[in-house]
């Protein structure tokens, strides 16, 4: 009888294991009679942290070198080869990630989400170019940015754009920046990384539409110099602000300008300011009145922008996957039966209640509401300031780089007949 009980005990033990406790195995590992040695799965280590730090060091070196080349050596050739190195190292070797442009989002996320810890390398990638720009101008764009490098190297026959078109398209980076920060701060998406047109080329691997986008940008870049930098780059907005107040900046001429106008066509980015035409200033159509009007309009622009943004927050927040899922489940309850909808099925099997999901989505939507107010207000401010800048006249005597928009690529210097 004892034997029989033992047998049943074994059976019940088996039953227990079959009953499927998460940690227990349904089929216990056999004990092998033959001398079997089980292999170990191969788990290669990730890239070492030291190499991340070396990336920062290389960035620092490249930035210093670019600044030296632009301000001291004044060598276009040197800058060209530096940008080739940047393209090869940060672009093709490091696959364009992490880059200073994308780091904007990491910084935004870490500011708004205390649960997210930013790595020190990412923060340095964000800060170093800005600090350098504050002292030396946008030498980062010329020498240290792989996205800038690939576009710069492909400039074939740049077309000149009228002022109004550049200014209007110049609003796009601000819009892109505010959306990128909004999406990053709400933990929705990193749109800068996702829609980076060149990263696919660096990786030699990308979804089809991104390949097409990247090639389109490069083809366009043959005639529209640096289209991404000028009309999209969100980080360029910050660099622009820094560069305007930079301590030192590339100058076209090493000595006094002789007003020969030779450099006037040299910049593919239309970033050379011409001397002001005294006659025109005298004949200016708009006086102080227009200036005051635009200045007073700024708070209204901010309010209108913020209001519009807050109105649009419902629509914009649908980009968040959680909000999208919650709304989908509310409006189309029948998707619960759709086995192909992986998100719905994963949610259903998670055992989470619908109410929790809706609550989470509402919290996110509220974040979007606040974020959209701020982003809208910011866009309003940008438009207001752009208008205001159009009625401000600053006397310029020489041909000089437009400090905000100049990438310090050193092209113009070779056009200047003044040496020393």
């Amino acid at each position, binding site marked *: 009888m004892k034997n029989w009980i033992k047998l049943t005990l074994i059976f019940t033990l088996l039953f227990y294991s079959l009953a499927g406790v998460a940690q227990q195995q349904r089929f216990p590992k056999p004990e092998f009679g033959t001398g079997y040695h089980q292999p170990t799965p191969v788990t290669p280590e990730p890239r070492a942290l030291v190499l991340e730090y070396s990336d920062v060091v290389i960035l620092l070196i490249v930035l210093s070198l670019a600044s030296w080349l632009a301000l001291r050596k004044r060598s276009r050739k040197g800058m060209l080869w530096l940008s080739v190195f940047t393209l090869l190292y940060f672009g093709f070797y490091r696959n364009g990630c992490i880059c200073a442009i994308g780091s904007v989002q990491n910084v935004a996320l870490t500011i708004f989400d205390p649960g997210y810890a930013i790595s020190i390398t990412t923060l340095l990638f964000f800060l170093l170019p800005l600090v350098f720009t504050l002292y030396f101008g946008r030498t980062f764009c010329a020498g240290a940015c792989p996205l800038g490098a690939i576009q710069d190297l492909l400039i074939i026959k740049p077309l000149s754009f009228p*002022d109004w078109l550049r200014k209007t398209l110049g609003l796009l980076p601000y819009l892109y920046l505010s959306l990128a920060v909004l999406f990053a701060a709400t933990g929705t998406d990193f749109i800068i990384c996702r829609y980076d047109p060149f990263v696919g080329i660096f990786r030699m*691997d990308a979804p089809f539409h991104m390949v097409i986008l990247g090639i389109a940008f490069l083809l366009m870049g043959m005639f529209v110099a640096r289209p991404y930098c000028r009309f999209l780059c969100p980080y360029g907005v910050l660099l622009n602000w820094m560069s305007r107040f930079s301590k030192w900046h590339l100058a076209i001429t090493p000595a006094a300008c002789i007003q020969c106008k030779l450099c006037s066509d040299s910049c593919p980015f239309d970033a050379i300011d011409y001397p002001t035409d005294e006659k025109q200033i005298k004949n200016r159509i708009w006086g102080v009145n227009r200036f005051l009007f635009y200045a007073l309009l700024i708070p209204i622009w901010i309010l209108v922008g913020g209001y519009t943004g807050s109105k649009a927050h419902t629509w914009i927040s649908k980009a968040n996957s959680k909000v999208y899922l919650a709304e989908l489940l*509310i409006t189309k309850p029948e998707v619960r039966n759709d086995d192909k909808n992986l998100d719905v099925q994963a949610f259903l099997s998670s*055992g989470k209640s619908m109410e929790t999901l809706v609550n989470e989505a509402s919290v996110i939507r509220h974040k979007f509401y606040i974020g959209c107010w701020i982003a809208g207000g910011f866009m309003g401010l940008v438009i207001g300031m752009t208008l205001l800048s159009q009625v401000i006249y600053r006397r310029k005597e020489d041909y000089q780089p437009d400090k905000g928009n100049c990438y310090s690529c050193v092209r113009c210097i070779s056009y200047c007949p003044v040496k020393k």
Partner: protein
Amino acid sequence: MENDAKLKLFLNIALVSGIFCLTVALLLLLNYMQMTKNKPLESKALTSLVKQLSQEPNSDELKQEIRDFDLLARKAYFNSQWQVKTGGYLLLFGAIVLAFALRVIIGLRSKIEEPDILDSNEMVGRLLTQRWVLLTGAILVILGLVASYASVDHLREYSVNDSSPNLKIADNRDKIEVIQVGQAPTVADSAKTSSVKPTVSLGSSLPVKVTQAPAVKVSFPGLAEIKSNVPSFRGPFGNGVFYQKETPVSWDAASGKNVIWKTPVPLKGYNSPIIWGTKLFLSGADNHSREVYCYERNTGKILWKQPVDKIKGSPEAAPKVTEDTGYSAPSLTTDGNRVYAMFATGDIICFDMDGNRIWARNLGVPDNHYGHASSLMMLKDKLFVQYDTNKSRKLIGLKASTGQTAWETQRKGKISWASPILAEINGKYQVVLSTDPMVAGYDADSGKELWSLNCMMGEVGPSPAFGSGLIFAANEYAKLVAIDPVKNVKVWESDEYMPEVASPVTANGLLFIATSYGVIACYDAKSGQKYWVKEDGTGFYSSPVIVDNKLYTFNTAGKMKVFEVGKTEKILGEGDAAEKVTTTPAFKDGRMYLRTPKFIYCIGKK
């Protein structure tokens, strides 16, 4: 001249590399289109071939065809990958050459030109800029506003259609007339015929929403009333002893012998029937829905059937449970006024006897690797929930009238699947729970732990039993112990026969155990002396119960054996459900009620 030759050379290079790039790009595009169209790894043709094979499993021809096709598909996939990779590098190389050649050509062709005359009128440019910036601003505002009007905030449409309005009106604690359980009840025994007292018309006529709170008097059932009914799992106080007479000792499902009625139960469930008056309650659930059923006890007709849904906090999909636990393992409980049910989702719901929903709430989805199994128990105005999860162990006392938490006692120990029982010790009622590692008693009023003894082990399934002043608890691979709850000491223990699922039962100074390997053992309750052991071929999940000095046992094969409650083994009768039986029967008015996987049976003399 040299310049011209150079120009010609680079023009040719540019031309060749341009054509090269274009060709490679076109080939890549072709490859991409082919891959997205055919998807060799998800080939439908292959799937249909495999399906065909399952119909004619011995067709060697078909097998060969599948093998060839499979090889082809994999070849196509890896070839295409190789092509994309190689093509990408070729394109890159071509593009570099092309770009270099173009730059040289442009450089050679460029002449120093007279600079363009400056934009003569800066003012015109500035005016244009202002206009365009204004226009852009306006477009952005319009786009934003259009987006806002075109999009709807669906999140606001969502609301849990919960029964919270009822919560308020049902809370009338102050008016509750307290009747001491344990004293001879003043309430007439007429409860047998009409258990729903007129004072409890509270819920019966309640629509979903009630605006005014009617003055309601709720009275608690007395001891006699509780004893004459089956208010919870394993009878009054969950002790496995029924105070009924003339219960049937033989029946047969196949032939219909002594079967008064049999009714199908719509949804599956391992909960056992409970009875109050003429009503019998069950619940059932699957991973989509949960329901509570009320049957007429004499006819077997379903009186009402209510869904358990729209509960705040209830998970969208049921948690994972094992097949042998299911979603509605906990048995219901009732006080004659209301009936309460709980499910593996953590949903707990209260209906009145007519099926009107009084309250419902979700206690949180229990993290339980088999599924929540502990049955409900109640006394007076409290509903006891043994809320054991892998994360925390709790005994929760809910206000029966509203479902609000009256108290919550954190318990030490591990998760348990046993059910609470009530034991009257020193004139006061205690909730007794069996858990790894301890058996413990909690004050039924406050939930305070009164005593606790470490003597259990493992994943405890059997509930404790109370009799002869002792608490009996047991579990497979652990021990069978008898505890004196007053002195908090172990009186005796045995490790010979131990149940895995079925709970022990005691009466007349005897203790009975039914194990999952098919042994029924009888002990002396006081001393632990073993009187007799009966080996049945099949194991027991259904708890043995004692009715009228008879021990009713059902093995998992559905065979019933009735023994005399005595120091010697004596079989009084046998029965057969012809189905698997894992639930515990209920007895009332000379009849036995048994739930099988598909049916609910009423057994008795016709």
